[in-house]
């Protein structure tokens, strides 16, 4: 008898927990459904190693910018200029390396600094003069689109030096030459995949035991184990696919490191906490002694640097800087954050959400292209998905309220 009530209570707990975190699950499940759907409708092309690698390469710059955008949106602002800024930085990089023959590493450093400076400049007006970010960055969008054109003289500039191209087209070299099913298999990718999986699962378990010790574990056991198994399958499966093609792309490493860094920043640091407080209630944050102006300035600076990095990666990938580079990126980046659960009113949003949001957009782009759906309908479908995601968000919030 006692047993029975115990399990039924457990069931209620699980249901309750899932309900309370419905947004997170819905997001992940949507990504899985979308992937399954395209895997089916592209006759298995989606999960081919080469295509998976492609998805990473195609979306890395969106993901990277989404990280910075998330901070800005959580802080209660927006940055419309990221596409133009990334295009502009790509153009400047081309001028540096192709026309002036500057050292690639030095060029990259200067470009990143320039991106940060642009972000800081926009953040300055938002933070200290309280001009709405929407206006400031709309102006920035126009300015840097124009400047990119000017810098390039209206033409495409390229190709880039070999070392620089490695940023986007390079792979982490393997230490052996191993073959699986008669094809080269990148052991290093698999090993790194294993290690990363182990580290993540270990961190999860450590946190779990900490939570249990202080009786703050809210997640039911079943869900916790299920989640970890899913993570393991996901990461191992992914590294396997990478290994079957050419191994781990350099951008993947950069992107992954940034995702880890930004997850850490948002969840564990005082800086991150203050951004959430700022977006949640600016007046209360200010009266709690938080230097809100400096915080806003800093988030925009970070965004600028990331937009710069994204611009470099995109230029390296195309191996040419074009005046059109970066066009419309801001839309994908902002959409990724909102699909990922960030609130338009600020104070809410997760890095994982933004990353998954970016991949939902990325997988859809990729899948629809393979299926041969025209760019026109792709836009329509992406727009509908964004609307749907935000609608569900608002709908559930109202229901819970």
């Amino acid at each position, binding site marked *: 008898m006692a047993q029975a009530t115990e399990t039924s209570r457990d069931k209620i707990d699980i249901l309750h927990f899932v309900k309370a975190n419905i947004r997170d699950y819905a997001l992940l499940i949507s990504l899985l459904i979308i992937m399954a759907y395209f895997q089916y409708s592209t006759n298995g092309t989606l999960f081919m190693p080469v295509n998976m690698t492609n998805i990473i390469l195609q979306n890395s710059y969106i993901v990277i910018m989404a990280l910075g955008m998330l901070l800005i949106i959580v802080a209660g602002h927006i940055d419309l200029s990221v596409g133009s800024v990334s295009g502009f930085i790509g153009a400047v990089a081309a001028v540096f390396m192709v026309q002036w023959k500057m050292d690639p590493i030095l060029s990259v450093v200067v470009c990143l600094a320039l991106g940060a400076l642009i972000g800081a400049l926009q953040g300055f007006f938002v933070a200290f003069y309280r001009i709405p970010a929407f206006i400031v960055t709309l102006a920035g969008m126009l300015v840097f689109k124009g400047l990119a054109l000017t810098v390039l003289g209206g033409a495409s500039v390229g190709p880039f030096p070999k070392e620089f191209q490695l940023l986007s087209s390079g792979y982490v070299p393997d230490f052996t030459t191993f073959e699986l099913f008669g094809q080269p298999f990148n052991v290093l990718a698999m090993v790194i995949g294993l290690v990363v999986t182990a580290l993540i699962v270990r961190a999860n378990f450590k946190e779990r035991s900490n939570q249990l010790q202080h009786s703050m574990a809210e997640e039911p056991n079943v869900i916790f184990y299920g989640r970890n198994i899913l993570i393991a399958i996901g990461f191992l499966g992914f590294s396997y696919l990478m290994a079957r093609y050419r191994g781990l792309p350099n951008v993947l490493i950069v992107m992954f490191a940034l995702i880890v860094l930004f997850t850490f920043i948002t969840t564990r640091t005082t800086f991150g906490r203050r951004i959430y407080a700022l977006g949640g209630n600016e007046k209360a944050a200010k*009266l*709690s*002694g938080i230097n809100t102006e400096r915080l806003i300035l800093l988030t925009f600076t970070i965004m600028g640097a990331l937009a710069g990095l994204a611009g470099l990666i995109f230029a390296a990938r195309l191996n040419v800087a074009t005046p059109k580079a970066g066009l419309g990126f801001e839309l994908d980046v902002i959409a990724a954050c909102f699909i990922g659960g960030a609130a338009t009113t600020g*104070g809410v949003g997760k890095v994982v959400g933004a990353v998954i949001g970016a991949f939902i957009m990325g997988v859809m782009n990729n899948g629809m292209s393979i299926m041969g759906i025209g760019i026109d309908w792709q836009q329509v479908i992406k727009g509908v998905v964004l609307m749907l995601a935000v609608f569900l968000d608002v709908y559930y919030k109202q229901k819970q309220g």
Partner: protein
Amino acid sequence: MQPILEMRDITKTFPGVKALTNVNLSVMPAEIHAVVGENGAGKSTLMKVLSGVYPDGTFTGKIMFEGKEQKFSAISDSEDIGIIIIHQELALVPLLSIAENLFLGHETAKMGVINWYEAYARTKELLKKVGLNESPDTLITNIGTGKQQLVEIAKALNKKVKLLILDEPTSSLNEKDSDALLELLMEFRAQGISSILITHKLNEVTKVADRITVIRDGSTIDTMDCSDGTVDEDRIIRAMVGRELSDRYPPRHATVGQPVLEVKDWSVYHPHHAERQTIKGVNLTVNAGEVVGIAGLMGAGRTEFAMSLFGRSWGQKITGTVKLHGKEVDVSTIPRAMDAGLAYVTEDRKTYGLVLIDHIKHNITLANLEDVSKRGVIDDIRELQVANGYRRDLAIRSSSVFQKTGNLSGGNQQKVVLSKWLFSGPDVLILDEPTRGIDVGAKYEIYGIINKLAEAGKAVIVISSEMPELLGMSDRIYVMNEGRFVAEMPVAEASQEAIMRAIMRS
């Protein structure tokens, strides 16, 4: 006689919290019915059920109004049959005028065109009824919370009301305005309008209520009839907290020492009207171990003074000097004021005190993240211990420290704000209306905390519109009027009359 309203067996649960369990409430026609109970007892929730904020189906139980069962699916449904609620948190549009707010959604319009002449005339009439002497043109942001409350009441009057629900209407009013409001309720009663009055000011309850329903932990404890003469504050308190509360103000054993805070010639101008001097050369000293009260009417400039002192968070062209422990300090920004040892607990907890979408734990540590982090990385476990500690010490009623502060009852929100500032470890704690909307038991706890601070040699400034509280808690009282300190008296010489005299004389 048939009751006008009967609520039967109302049960309402939120995820993880059972807010109401089989609550019964009946209100007679032309009756003032008080609903009292501790913070988080479920009073506001019950009223939200009654007014359709929580629509039919989200709770169980029956609502009978004028003999008919009612199922509301929205607030407008309850308003249509004459049930009007004024919420604990005001719902006015700050950048619209009083008249515009009054007629929001109820514009006297012909084919969508508003007749503003009529609206203004009607507004004037209504404002007169609630005793508010302001032009209908005045923007809501330009009047204080007290006056905003009166606008809310005027707004309710504008609708055809049969049952008026007031959730802590007087918590932000001074005594005179509160009295006027209670008179108003009695006038309504004479006209046959019933009211439900939720308040933590028990003297009001005994003054005007015909019957009193006490709610504790989400259940009805008792409904008392005031006409039989056995109801007094002690009996109500006993029913509310479930035990005897012998003394309203705990004794303090602090020795008053050297000056901690000395403010000289403090002058401040209005942030938007540079020619208007709001604070006019104020001098104030608070000693170690001392609790100093600032008395004054609404609009005397007490909050403005406190906020300007706390990192210049209010006003402009601020002049004057501030000394802490005898040394002049820089308090020109909030972080600097905090470094110097100041802390300010705001009067308006929703706008200035809390991040409502975040949970208790994050709110408590927000002003002092340094103490729960190392090199910018937060120590989760330590943060949790801190939060749990305050939740226990201040008896913050909540499912856990992970409950959103937006879902807490008003009084418990106040305790979270207080925890935040206690955790910042100040030398001088400025409390602006610290017990507004707080129940008797929790007040006692908060007084105890103030005492502990004083006993630890800290300086405490209490701004309060409740004179009994000032008299009960302070060692010394400054009286403020129109931006000046017009009197200073040790508590032994102070009385409500003396304070009012000082204000009138100035």
